[in-house]
């Protein structure tokens, strides 16, 4: 086994509190690939970029900075598994590192709780670490597969805040990316292209709470586009998107009378399946939409 790379694992809210299997799968699958995700004790909500950023960006900066300082104190880079957290934690880290005025303002507030943002760590989405061939890479993931997901068609939902705005990220194309598809194909599944792949799930910006039918109508459009190309499941790298697609289908049925039964997986759950973890180890029974039809195809 190669040397383990250690990261402070920033959990956010939805993974630990609604999809604990995604949290646990991330820790277990990563360990097999040379990544040790260490607990980041005392971390909080990132905080939600839509809710907090909309009210006062300065509060958003300060709250995110507190989480960053916890990891700075651990002397570990942060790894996380949620696009919303990525926006808060990655973007605030970047902004505070490069904007002295902003950093001074934030540190003024942090002083009240005996903290100081130093800018000593970096922030990564676990998916980008998995794709980076200097860290893990597609080949190593392929080698770790014990139960290939052969014969399944998977629609990848990238989400928004991982890659957009493009100029403030570093992950290339935001119109027609293929890298998460590569990660999916490494598991033996077929990653299908569908109409308007890069569209939002509909949940962000506080819209899910502000106007649920509006947000579900966006989700519904995406689901239709996925079904059009015969997808067996959706995969994403963001528990908030996961919630919107998974629980959202129940809400869509309630509000619009349309039933889909489209299983939704966090990529690390799929990775866990392919590495041989059992559905119950992955907590797949906690999903609102049954994953059974998909599991039947692979197990």
């Amino acid at each position: 086994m190669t040397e383990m790379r250690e990261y402070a694992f920033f959990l956010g809210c939805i993974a630990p509190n609604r999809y604990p299997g995604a949290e646990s799968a991330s820790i277990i699958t990563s360990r097999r690939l040379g990544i040790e995700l260490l607990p980041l004790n005392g971390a909080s909500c990132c905080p939600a970029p839509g809710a907090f950023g909309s009210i006062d960006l300065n509060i958003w900066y300060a709250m995110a900075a507190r989480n960053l300082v916890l990891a700075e104190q651990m002397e570990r880079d942060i790894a996380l598994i949620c696009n919303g957290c990525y926006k808060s934690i990655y973007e605030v880290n970047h902004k505070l590192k490069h904007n002295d005025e902003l950093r001074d303002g934030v540190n003024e507030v942090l002083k009240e709780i005996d903290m100081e943002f130093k800018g000593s760590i970096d922030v990564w989405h676990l998916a980008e670490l998995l794709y980076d061939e200097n860290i893990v890479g597609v080949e190593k993931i392929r080698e770790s597969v014990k139960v290939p997901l052969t014969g399944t068609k998977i629609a990848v939902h990238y989400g928004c805040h991982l890659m957009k705005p493009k100029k403030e990220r570093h992950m290339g194309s935001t119109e027609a990316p293929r890298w998460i598809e590569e990660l999916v194909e490494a598991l033996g599944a077929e990653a299908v292209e569908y109409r308007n792949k890069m569209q939002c799930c509909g949940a962000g910006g506080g819209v899910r709470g502000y106007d649920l039918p509006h947000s579900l109508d966006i989700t519904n459009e995406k689901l239709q586009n996925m079904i059009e190309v015969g997808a067996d499941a959706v995969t994403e790298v963001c528990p908030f998107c996961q919630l919107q697609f998974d629980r959202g289908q129940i809400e869509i049925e309630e509000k619009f009378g349309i039933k889909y039964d489209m299983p939704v997986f966090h990529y690390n759950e799929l990775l866990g399946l392919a590495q041989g973890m059992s559905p119950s180890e992955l907590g797949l029974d906690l999903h609102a939409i049954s994953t059974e039809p998909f599991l039947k195809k692979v197990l």
Partner: protein
Amino acid sequence: MAEAVSPTTSKKPETPRIGVFICHCGTNIAGSIDIDAVKEYAKTLPNVAYVDDYKYQCSMPGQVNIREQIDANKLTGVVVAACTPRLHEPTFRAASKDGGLNPFRFEMANIREQNSWVHMHDREGATEKAKDAVRIAVAKAALLEDLYPKSVPVERAAMVVGAGVAGMQAALDLANAGIKTYLIEKEPSIGGRMSQLDKTFPTLDCSQCILTPKMVDVGRAENIVLMVNSEVEDVEGYIGNFDVTIRRKATGVLSPEEAEAKGIVGGGCTGCGDCGPVCPVTKPNEFEMNMAPRKAIYIYHPQVVPLLYTIDWDSCVKCGLCVEACGEKKAIDLEMQDELVQVKVGTVILATGYEVFPIENKEEWGYKRYDNVITSLEFERLICASGPTGGHLVRPSDGETPMRIGFVLCAGSRDNTGIGKPYCSRFCCMYSLKHAHQIIEKIPGAVPYIFYMDIRSFGKMYEEFYYRIQDEGAKFIRGRVSNIQEDPVTKNVTVYVEDTLLGRPMEIELDMVVLAAAVQPTELTNKTRKLFGVSCSQDGWLLEAHPKLNPCGTTTAGVFLAGACQGPKDIPDSVAQAEGAASAASIPIHKGEVELEPYYAMCIEEKCAGCGMCVNLCPYQALSLVEKDGRTVMQVTEAKCKGCGTCGGFCPGGAIWMNHFATPQIVAQIDAFLLGGEQ
């Protein structure tokens, strides 16, 4: 302080008497600068013998006054504090000369562009700055010397680089004016982009039909030496005497003349076409935007000039079948090598044209990802009767006739993202209108959708053309397309756009989308311009000497611009500029000689150690080492020297004298500035 004495003047120094003339430029200067204060100040400066001011110094009374005061006050130098020397230095030099002074005794202080215009709201500061400028100019004027421009003869030949419509027109004009003209083209045929177009706006005449007579004329013109498959390799010299090395790339095919020179009587390529069919290699034809095949030995299309086949060495397998097919004409030489040709010309016109921006970089529109998203140049070939489909517009995905076709304007133009181009590509609006007309005309029931931000129909009869196309039924939607989605099954393309006039997002499913992609300078333009010392603006287009008053010239004397290499241009504008450039390029040739500014470097031989450091530094190869009186000294070829000062600034012994920018003159200016006139 440097005590160097000019090697040109041996007479004892006179006592300087400087006249200072301060211009109001109406209120341009007087509005922000206290002229009286500057005038009173000038009177206190050393060596100033006369001070005056005038409302418009460049006017005839202003010039006459300079002339008269030179005589009346026995002036040895003249300073005019006014606008930029780029505008009126020639005027005041002439006035000084009229007054009996050597024109190089004149010095200009710029108190307008560099002062009154930028310090409009700081009268006091501007006035102080004007005093500084006058003091500095007076300090230099006191040390100026008589200089005499040199004349050099001009080679009676010209060169045009690029044989698109602009280059062809320029070459024809020069040739018709009796000037031998080398026309250099990198492609196997002349004709350029225009030969790829189907019809032209707003007249709708067939592009090839109006172009081929010109191509034939070029091919036949006695005064035009046509070199296709050729690139400029190296340039030396200066206006009147450019030594240009041309790389004639091996085409593998001999023209009848070349064959005859080799003793093959009655041989050489006649364009018979026997070779192509036997060639086993098939490649995409670039002229057809890669939508039709060609062989490794090929011509782009039947009307090429010159009608000679060319071998594509990258794909030729040298099987020799073409050589057999050619038979007795013996036109094919599979071992042919590139050839370097040296020519001498007096003036040069660059007409290197444009190419299409790689629009796949704007990923949101899916070019190269979606079959039925094409570029306008591809549309031109598809709609052209001599194109790959015989003029039947078809969808690349299935060969079906598209009935609903979208045209995305400003595709990559007016784009500040750093991916596209910030400028307007200028002719896309008009050709897209023409495209809309063509599909309405050719495909009954077809509907063009034009997605636009602004329709820029600025030329003669252009707005009328816009009116006509709208009347013919084209749908105009005022909004920029955000993205395009392909239907995975039908391969139809859905355009997402907002009708900004209705304030309503639109989802429009179309059979095909044509991107009016931005244009950019050709890849070779940058290399070529550097060889000729021509600058480019920040967007990469070649820089004209003055955007309004010298649009065909460049800052390199004797080098001119024609067509789209200077900026996106449609055919009328390209041809017009080509005729302008031809006229400008013919002037030095007809005059027979040109005056060179006497700003060249000179060697003060007694100080020169002959170290030769300067020789290598000179960007213009103007310096050399010679033996003189038993020692090695540097020598300047005055005609080659551009007076850049690189050598003078470097020379460790201070042995190089830069005429008009000599060390004592510059030091006096610096002293005048730093010491505030207390030197």
